[in-house]
């Protein structure tokens, strides 16, 4: 990616943080399973945005770049700590509004990371498998398979002509 030598201004940073922090936080929370680590990962992602100062084609490109960096940041954080994520049940309790939602969150957070990523990118960010493949640097076939396997693990019922077709 072409690098810019000019760092974003405070206004640009504020705009970027306000627009994307929620999306990144959702993704990082799904991967790291607690709010503290998610906040850290989101901050680190924005640090990289400042340090790298990439030139983006458009907002979609920027969002995809930030999501990819967030995924890698979460991966590095886990590697650094030599341990798997610590699921904070208080956080889940506070996020979920009903018992069924709590159970769903619990199931998603217990999935292996590679399935969490595709589930999140497809169901929350609305990406198709081709786009997911680009973000995660995997083949479209692998993205499709992962999404299918994640659905199977979650015993997810999905309608014809619905998200499956989009994917």
């Amino acid at each position: 990616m072409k690098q810019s030598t000019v760092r974003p201004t405070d206004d640009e940073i504020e705009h970027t943080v306000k627009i994307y922090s929620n999306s990144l936080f959702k993704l990082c929370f799904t991967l790291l399973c607690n709010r503290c680590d998610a906040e850290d990962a989101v901050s680190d992602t924005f640090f990289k945005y400042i340090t790298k100062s990439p030139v983006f084609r458009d907002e979609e490109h920027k969002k995809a770049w930030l999501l990819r960096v967030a995924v890698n940041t979460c991966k590095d954080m886990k590697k650094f700590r030599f341990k798997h994520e610590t699921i904070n049940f208080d956080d889940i309790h506070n996020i979920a509004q009903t018992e069924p939602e709590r159970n769903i969150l619990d199931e998603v957070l217990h999935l292996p990371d590679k399935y969490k990523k595709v589930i999140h990118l497809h169901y929350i960010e609305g990406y198709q498998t081709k786009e997911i493949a680009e973000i995660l640097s995997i083949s479209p076939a692998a993205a499709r398979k992962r999404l299918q396997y994640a659905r199977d693990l979650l015993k997810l019922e999905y309608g014809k002509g619905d998200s499956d077709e989009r994917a």
Partner: protein
Amino acid sequence: MKEHELQQALDNIQISLEEQQRILFKVKNYNNKRECYKMSKKKICLVAAAATMVLGITVFAASGVIKSWNSSSSSIPDYNSLPTAEECMQDAGFSPVLIQSFENGYEFDNGSIVKNDLRDESDKSVEKFKSLYFRYEKNNDEVTLTSQKYVSEMDITGENAATVGNIPLYYSSYTNKAVPANYKLTEEDKKAEENGELIFSYGANEVTVSKVQNLFWEEDGIKYDLMQIDGSLTKEELIDMAEELINK
């Protein structure tokens, strides 16, 4: 499970305004690299921002190659009991002197692994290393012990307060003023900062002033820092604790 139920459950994950503001502050601070800290004053930044994950960004206005010191760790302690030498070696790449409790009654409470990144003027990483940050407690009075190993050269500040064996101990004390992110320095503040009487930490909810004491020494290539904020320990007691560690 149905798709809309999954989407609803995941959509409930929302960043709070407070979390977003903390991130914004940290990110802006990272961009601007405010020259509000000096090398020996790093640890106070760690404490001031401990509730958030990025512990501090220290800018060294006067040092040579190293211009900033970025530290981060989990706000959840990595150790709830004193780690073994093997664990330290695995987690941080070195094994410091380990002590469960000091003779004056301070007992190990918990500890964290801190990631450090030293950067030069062009913001290139010069050296990355991990520190071990242990908290000791006695009757709600806390003292922290940081051990770390790095090769970059830094100026040592503080007075040579004592020598144990052939190891010199350097003591410094100062006043820290933790202020909100949008705090504007008064003329009096600016003057006190210039004189080195006050060190400012940004990002606090309200203005608080703390007395900080710091004792530094180096043994077998490992740098140790004993620090207390608003505690009851005297300089002599800190020296005794350092002596206990060195003689262990």
